[in-house]
Structures are given as structure tokens and as C-alpha cells.
């Protein structure tokens, strides 16, 4: 039971944060889109709240490091693998119009067929990738 309550509380907090962003700014909490809108040129007045959201996420990391450092973990992999993962996540999330937050939480929460399809797809390829890396190639 204990093992379920904390993750559930985390999910509820994420849902409340997404609803709060919608209520105040009218926007979906899709983090890949928010991050792209912060770093890529040509978004104008929309950039300020996006940059603030990203800053809030970074601030949350500092809070977590202070209060529950056990919740953080450093990814361990070769630089080449890290770069490949980052490129795929960045390019793929833009091409597919969203990531775990925009499709997986908000999109499914508002019962969008596109988000259901996208989430099923990325869950499937992620599970397959972990299977190949861990059990076929015998990596981490």
C-alpha cells in the first residue's frame, strides 16, 4: 500500500499542475512543446510563461534534491548513447506533437484519440527498446 500511495500522490500532483496551467493560461502542459517554445526562436510573447514553466521544473529539481534526494538518479550511459537518446526524444516529440506529459497525461485525460494512439506507440517502442538493450544486447 505504501508503495502505491507516493507514486499516486505524484500523479495527482502532476494532474493538478496541468489543470492549473489550463485554468490560468489556457494552455496544455506539454513539456516538449513548452521546452521547444523556450529555446527555439519565433515564439514571441508566448515565450515568457514557457520559460517560467521550465524554470519552475528546474526549481522543483532543487527542492527534490534538498527534501528527497533518493527520488533522483543520474543516467549512466556512454556519451554517444546519451546524445542519440536526446536527439530521438527531441526530434520525435516534435514530429509526434507531444511527449509523456502532453499525450500521456493531458491528451489521454481529455480523451484525445491522437494522444491515445501516440501514447500506445511510444510505450510500445520504449518497452521494445528496453527489451532489446537489456535482454538481447545484455546492456544496462
Amino acid at each position, binding site marked *: 500500500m505504501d508503495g502505491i500511495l507516493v507514486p499516486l*500522490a505524484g500523479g495527482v500532483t502532476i494532474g493538478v499542475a496541468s489543470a492549473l496551467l489550463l485554468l490560468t*493560461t489556457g494552455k496544455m502542459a506539454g513539456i516538449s512543446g513548452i521546452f521547444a517554445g523556450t529555446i527555439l526562436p519565433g515564439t514571441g510573447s508566448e515565450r515568457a510563461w514557457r520559460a517560467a514553466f521550465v524554470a519552475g521544473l528546474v526549481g522543483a529539481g532543487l527542492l527534490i534534491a534538498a527534501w528527497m534526494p533518493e527520488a533522483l538518479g543520474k543516467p549512466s550511459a556512454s556519451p554517444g548513447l546519451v546524445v542519440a537518446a536526446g536527439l530521438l526524444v527531441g526530434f520525435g516529440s516534435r514530429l509526434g506533437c507531444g511527449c509523456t506529459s502532453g499525450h500521456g497525461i493531458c491528451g489521454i485525460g481529455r480523451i484525445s484519440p491522437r494522444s491515445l494512439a501516440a501514447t500506445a506507440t511510444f510505450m510500445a517502442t520504449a518497452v521494445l527498446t528496453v527489451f532489446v538493450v537489456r535482454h538481447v544486447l545484455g546492456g544496462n
Partner: protein
Amino acid sequence: MRTILSGLFAGLLFGVGLGLGGMTDPANVLGFLDFAGAWNPNLLFVMGGGVGVFAALFPLIRKRTGPLFAPSFDLPTARRIDGRLLGGAALFGIGWGLLGLCPGPAIVNAAVGGPNVLLFLGAMGAGMGLHAAVQKSRVGRAAARELLAPDA
């Protein structure tokens, strides 16, 4: 100013939720994605909690004539499930499965996760820039075709 403060607070709360949910530890995420190993179902509850709360609040918020600090709601309008959506999601999933990091948790870890997280974020930004460049050239080519062969 109010949208900036709203964004900041929502980001902070979202990030704390990711931490509570264990999404900020890539090993935990990989454990969830590893069906053939010692499967860790915890992230199912994170997703369930997030989806459940958002699904309950979304219709209530949408009943309002508009958001508190902006003129109108800005929701996705695309309906078509096409190759771009599924291909993008497929690539995204491969990248997620390689390292256990998706954009939110990577940003939360930016200041505390060490050099690999920063390298990941740099590459993620480059991937996004690459997509923007490809998109731009595609739009440019379509416009050029239109100009050269307006009847086609």
C-alpha cells in the same frame, strides 16, 4: 506577469509531482519499461493519478468562458492519426527507452543530475531544432512548387 507566475508555479508543482512519482530517477523508469525483467509497476499509478485528476478537472475548466489570465483556451485542433504522429511517437519512445529520460524529468534534473543530463538536454534541443529546420524546408518546398506550377 500573471501568466508568467502561473507558468512558474505550475512548472514547480509539476516537477515536484514527477519527483514524488519517481519519474526523476531513470533507473526507476527503465524498471517500469522492462516487462521481461523485475517489472516495477509504480509508474502506472503516477500515470493513472495524473490522467484521472486531469480527466476530472478538464471538463470543469472547459465549462468556463475562458482561462483566468488569457483571452481564450488554446487546445490542440488536429484530429488525424497519421504517419507523422505515429512515426514521431515511435522515435520518441526509442529515445525514452534508451536512457529512461523524457523531457520533463530531464529538465527537473538539469541542475542536479550531472553532465549526462545536460548532454541529453543539449541533444534534445538539437533534435527539436532539426525538426523545426526540416519543417521549414518542407513548407518552403511546398510554396516553391505552388509558385512554379500553380495549376498542379
